[in-house]
């Protein structure tokens, strides 16, 4: 029974949203707002049950019930810092939320610097060089050598395109022109793949309507 009601509700809401294709209307607006409300509610519950409780409440409880008091008490510091987020609710103290935000920003930025440098710069440069060591070793076929050279041209010219402190004239202009062509092929392929992605979502919804709701298939 509850499954049947569920399917009907889901089908109704699905159609509400599709009604947007005709034009914006009250059914669509109702569904959209309901969606926002439900998903925020879901987010709150998950963040409390699987975030605040295991990360903050449990250590807090352990710290205050532990006898004799031990290192667990240090966990009270981050909990207190986290609680500063509630200052958002009191306008005159709202600036206190800068403390936890600043700490999180500091940690995030600090983690990013060496890791991004290593994974996204050094490793990518290395990846550009490796085919050429294979060329020298003679392990690449003709088309692969062509691919490696094309890759070099692509990387260099795209990088040149994003050079801002030099006027794009002469050689630099020519190279950056090639860069923009590579970018366009990249964006084109993304476009093609996006079509596949969006259509997949539509097919799944149609399947739902025809199969689970109407039982046509």
């Amino acid at each position, binding site marked *: 029974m509850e499954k049947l009601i569920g399917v009907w509700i889901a089908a109704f809401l699905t159609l509400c949203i599709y009604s947007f294709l005709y034009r914006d209307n009250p059914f669509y607006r109702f569904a959209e707002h309901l969606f926002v409300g439900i998903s925020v509610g879901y987010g709150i519950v998950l963040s409390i049950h699987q975030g605040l409780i295991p990360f903050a409440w449990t250590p807090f409880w352990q710290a205050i019930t532990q006898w004799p008091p031990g290192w667990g008490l240090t966990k009270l510091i981050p909990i207190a810092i986290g609680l500063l987020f509630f200052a958002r609710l009191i306008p005159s103290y709202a600036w206190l939320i800068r403390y936890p935000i600043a700490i999180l920003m500091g940690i995030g930025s600090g983690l990013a610097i060496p890791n991004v440098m290593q994974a996204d710069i050094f490793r990518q440069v290395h990846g550009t060089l490796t085919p050429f060591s294979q060329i020298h070793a003679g392990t690449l076929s003709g088309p692969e050598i062509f691919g490696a050279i094309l890759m070099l041209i692509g990387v260099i010219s795209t990088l040149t395109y994003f050079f801002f402190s030099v006027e794009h004239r002469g050689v630099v202009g020519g190279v950056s022109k090639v860069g923009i062509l590579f970018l366009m092929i990249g964006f084109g392929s993304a476009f093609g793949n996006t079509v596949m992605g969006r259509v*997949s979502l539509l097919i799944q919804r149609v399947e739902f309507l025809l199969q689970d709701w109407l039982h046509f298939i």
Partner: protein
Amino acid sequence: MLKKIMRIDRRIIFILVALAVIIPTLLKVSFPITVSEPTRKLYDYIEDLPSGSTVLIAFDYGPSSMAELQPMGMAFLRHCFQKKIQVIGMTLVTDGATLGYEIMQEAAKTTDAIDGEDYVYLGFRPGTIQVMLGMGTTINSIFESDYKEKPLAEIPMMAGIKNYDQIDLVLDLASSSTTEAWIAYINTRYNQKIAAGVTGVIISQMYPYLQTEQLIGLMPGLLGAAEYETLIDTPAKATKRMSVQSFVHLLVFGLVILGNVAFFIQKRENENV
């Protein structure tokens, strides 16, 4: 006439799209799938793992990307369970918590895998990068218990698994930039092997990481799911959907061509005037 064709109400195109999906869905057409290299690499990696190995799947997506990523998860889980490879499931995305749980249950049912022995579902923890990094010390420090709040210490499968050292592969099913984070932090710091299954929108962005082997394999969108289904020889949802997909692609292809032909004819007419 030409102007009329070009100014066509877009709702007519909407109807064409709807028909291109509905009719093939009802007719149940099906085409064979050609498997691409990145998907095959992932399959081969799992195929070469001895039974009893452990993989971690991160279900980092919400309902909006379910259509593409759920079939991937299903095909991959089936393969693992059939090969008696242990699976740990988790998510870094709030909306993924319930979805991940459902799909692991479903895959387990079809392959008789047992919760706690063949697979464990840990659920969600907020903090993305910090969660990933925390699991590098001990998984237990992030997930004291599984999704159903059973302490990890009491789960037989988790007995020998402390952190990434005991995990042979992380598969990230992603609809946003989580794969890049897995690569930059976990592959770099812990030398963990990473593979991904991603939505159509971000497929193109993943290729540089494949060449550097920061990703050992990639399932590209729904097509990737269909390819994996083909590899494990159990065509399911994705294969069906890709066949339907074909007709919409043909339609869009036709629309682009038609639009451009009209555009050029008009341009020429304007030049002649």
